[in-house]
């Protein structure tokens, strides 16, 4: 018995000795992340999620900002490669990083994309843009039936230069039409993704078509710009629905709390996307097989207090409720993705 126990302990010790170093060795020491626009609230929260997960796993995470400049993005990524980071994560500014994707493959450096796909990529972590819009569209359809007499005339405050944001808007309209077949896209404008541009463009668009009753924004700034243009024109919010997308920062929470028309948010949980990206980077580092798109969950938040399910706010700081967000099940595959992927 004693001998057996001794053998058992010896075996367990040998296994532990094998597994523990292997586990430590499987964790990358340093991950380099090149974001495309670090000053945007969305990316700040992506980084927040990345840092939280990297700290849990004992990984050093270094972040550099391309500031929407692909040349800067390429040189920042090359710097990381020269420094010998174990894994690269890049949020592409545009297709200009394709040669880098090829080079990383040739040099055997795992490279994960965040947010947008490019050709020849190995893997990408992103929410499903179309699905996110679709889910919000379904909720908007129900709201239209219950609050807007079943009539939906939509102004999309969009960003046509980005395929991801175009997909969101398409998803929203398709979701809305699934519930309200007669829903019409009355105005499709370029709000530039910025609140002031969105406001200026929306003001003219509202004058062009006075009978709009739903404002859809491809991000929170666009939705809020559209809403502020509506308010500036002196209209009541009584028969209006505003739908934002992203859940980027505090803006949508504030709007849901204070604006009667801002009732639906297509939340994309940037913190969760950052968290998922680090996990995916570890899997790539370990040469595990990963799907080309690793989906980060999204959900439609409905009603003035809907956000409280996923976030808490203290002063100017919002904190994600990981339990609630982790309970969300992302789809295995997106309903629609950017052309060519």
């Amino acid at each position: 018995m004693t001998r057996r126990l001794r053998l058992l302990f010896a075996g367990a010790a040998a296994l532990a000795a094998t597994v523990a170093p292997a586990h430590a060795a499987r964790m990358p020491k340093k991950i380099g992340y090149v974001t495309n626009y670090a000053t945007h609230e969305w990316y700040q929260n992506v980084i927040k999620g990345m840092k939280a997960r990297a700290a849990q796993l004992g990984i050093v995470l270094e972040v550099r900002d391309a500031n929407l400049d692909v040349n800067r993005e390429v040189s920042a990524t090359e710097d990381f490669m020269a420094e010998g980071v174990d894994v690269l994560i890049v949020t592409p500014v545009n297709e200009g990083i394709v040669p880098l994707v090829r080079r990383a493959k040739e040099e055997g450096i795992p490279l994960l994309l965040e947010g947008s796909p490019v050709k020849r990529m190995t893997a990408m972590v992103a929410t499903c843009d179309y699905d996110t819009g679709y889910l919000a569209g379904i909720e908007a359809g129900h709201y239209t039936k219950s609050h807007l007499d079943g009539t939906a005339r939509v102004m999309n405050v969009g960003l046509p230069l980005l395929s991801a944001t175009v997909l969101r808007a398409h998803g929203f309209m398709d979701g809305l039409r699934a519930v309200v077949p007669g829903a019409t896209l009355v105005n499709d404008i370029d709000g530039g993704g910025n609140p002031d541009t969105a406001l200026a463009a929306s003001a003219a668009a509202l004058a062009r078509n006075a009978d709009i009753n739903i404002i859809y924004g491809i991000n929170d700034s666009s939705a809020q710009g559209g809403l502020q243009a509506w308010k500036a024109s002196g209209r009541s919010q009584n028969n209006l629905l505003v739908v934002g997308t992203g859940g980027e920062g505090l803006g949508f929470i504030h709007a849901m709390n204070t604006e009667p028309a801002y009732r639906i948010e297509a939340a994309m949980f940037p913190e969760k996307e950052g968290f998922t990206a680090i996990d995916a980077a570890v899997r790539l580092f370990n040469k595990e097989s990963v799907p080309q798109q690793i989906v980060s969950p999204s959900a439609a938040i409905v009603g003035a207090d809907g956000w409280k399910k996923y976030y808490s706010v203290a002063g100017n700081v919002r904190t994600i409720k990981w339990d609630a967000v982790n309970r969300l099940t992302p789809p295995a595959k997106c309903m629609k993705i950017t052309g060519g992927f």
Partner: protein
Amino acid sequence: MSDILQPATGTRVSPRLGANCPGVLLVLLAVLCLAISINSSRFYAIENITGILRQCALVLIIGSGMTLLLITAEVDLSVGASLAFAGVIAMDATNQTGSVWLGAPAGILFGGLVGLANGIIVTRFKVTSLIATIATMMILQGGVFLYSRQAIQNGSQLPAFSTISTGYFGPLPMPVLIAAIIFACTYVVLRHTLFGRYVYAVGANPYAARLSGLNPERLKLIVFVVTGLLTGLSGLILASLMNAGQPTAGHGFELTVIAAVILGGTSLKGGRGTLLGTLLGVLILQVINNGIIILGWDQELQLVVPGFVIVLAAYLDIVRRRDNVR
């Protein structure tokens, strides 16, 4: 010297194209309005006119200061960045103090301080205003994110803060009223005061102005501060309009302002320009922007068309100068 102290160059009658800048601009504006309204009856809707005027207000307020600055042969490229930062400061100060009466002046004062800094760098350190204000722009664009990583929301929900942009005085939206007052004051100062004549004199020939006993540096410093204060005021209105201090706002705003002022006939080389021209320049650019959306055209044209208009305006400026030389 009499030529230097002649501010009304834009109103001189000449048969040559471009010699009468406000006249040409007025015709251009009328043609634009007519063309757009023929294709869309919504153009003349009260709501649309109000929207155009509200958008014009922000540009015109800063444009009034920029006109003075360009006449003195200086420029301020930091106004877009300062606009965003001033809005953030105004919103934050309003939230912190719970008072618009303290928050609003904080934003305006911030703009004034930026103007003062620009003025000191240009007049004391002798850095050209183009370089100095590009540097300030970069400092402000980065600095605003050091100040706040996120948009500052109207947490206190004070109705007075929203009234600054969405309120009305009779039929006039509040920003339009504010812009009208600023425009009128600047117009009077430039056209009917000694200070206005000094502005032209310093811009036309600073050496001659100095020999005449003027202090060009001090005058330019004042104009920088005025432009800064007006930028702060515009930032406050923009923050009120968006119900938040948005660090990402104001990108490219400086180009819109400068384009409008140049289109209005103010020379980049200084000594020449009128506020009436600036007003018309602002109106033309905003009508073009509005018309592109009202007509449902591709919005990329909002960059392309004003670009062509500015080339045309620059050419007209050359024609005017050539006429004056003759």
